[in-house]
């Protein structure tokens, strides 16, 4: 062993041929000589076996969208669903890195909507841009329709990523406002009651 933890000799590592298909080798610690090379290094070369693309959206959600997209009688193979799941993560990363680059070029730290739309345009997804703008508009209107309290609650933990001009006051439980203004009516609750007039953050 030359101590190189990235040996690609399958028989040495004891990994099966199925791992050869991807360009990335997941180093398994097997009960063979491979262990020596892995342990020789500080991080054993194992650290990076969790790629960014390994985070996926739930397959049920992805499959549902696919099912609704193809003709009603159509079927979808299981490996196709898994594959699209991976493609989705790739897509998100693709768009994000492009948007992030533009952001950095303009010396900004927060990726905003414009960056995303611009990235899509640049990367060949300009057909999404107009529908997306419409969705965004509808979404904002749906939120604002509530008695003049602009609130945004889209699934879990959205509140953590507010824009730079968002307020710094601590939030009372259950209320988040998009423009940082606190309305006169503040509902202070310590429990997550269902308060009809205010859109709450849904923790599912």
């Amino acid at each position, binding site marked *: 062993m030359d101590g190189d933890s990235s040996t690609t000799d399958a028989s040495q590592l004891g990994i099966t041929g199925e791992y050869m298909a991807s360009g990335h080798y997941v180093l398994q610690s097997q009960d063979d000589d491979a262990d020596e090379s892995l342990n020789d290094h500080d991080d054993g070369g194992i650290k990076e076996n969790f790629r960014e693309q390994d*985070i996926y*959206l739930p397959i049920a959600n992805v499959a549902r969208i696919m099912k609704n*997209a193809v003709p009603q009688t159509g079927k979808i193979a299981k490996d196709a669903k898994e594959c699209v799941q991976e493609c989705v993560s790739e897509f998100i990363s693709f768009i*994000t890195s492009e948007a992030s680059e533009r952001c950095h070029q303009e010396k900004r730290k927060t*990726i905003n909507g414009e960056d995303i739309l611009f990235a899509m345009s640049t990367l060949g997804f300009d057909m999404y841009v107009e529908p997306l703008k419409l969705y965004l508009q509808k979404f904002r209107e749906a939120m604002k329709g509530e008695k003049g309290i602009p609130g945004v609650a*889209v699934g879990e933990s*959205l509140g953590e990523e507010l824009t730079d001009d968002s307020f710094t006051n601590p939030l009372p439980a259950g209320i988040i406002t998009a423009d940082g203004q606190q309305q006169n009516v503040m509902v202070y609750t310590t429990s997550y009651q269902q308060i009809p007039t*205010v859109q709450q953050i*849904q923790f599912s």
Partner: protein
Amino acid sequence: MKMSQNNADKDDQTSATKKTISLPVSRVRLIMKSSPDVSSINQDALFLTTKATELFVQHLALSSFNNGSGKETNTLSYSDLAHTAEETETFHFLTDILPKKILARDYLNSLDQMQEEDADF
């Protein structure tokens, strides 16, 4: 006090939100943040990305279904996707993760062939 409002408004709000998004936003954010050099993402960006992802899935699924064997077999298969990624420029970025699969048997056969060729020297 606004607390006396009935529940109908809230339900409309929730269903409006649910109608617009069918993917978990927090997971999308997680994937976005795993990109290098990403510090923070604003709400609009997150919403747009999530929504775009939906459109992407629909787009990819339907294109692959129509262009591939879907028409005959009525089933969307992995190879339809791989095929579409290669044929359609928009989906070229997927070619690395959508290698055309070959049977292990065929792979091993071609390995053997290569070794035989080497041995001929």
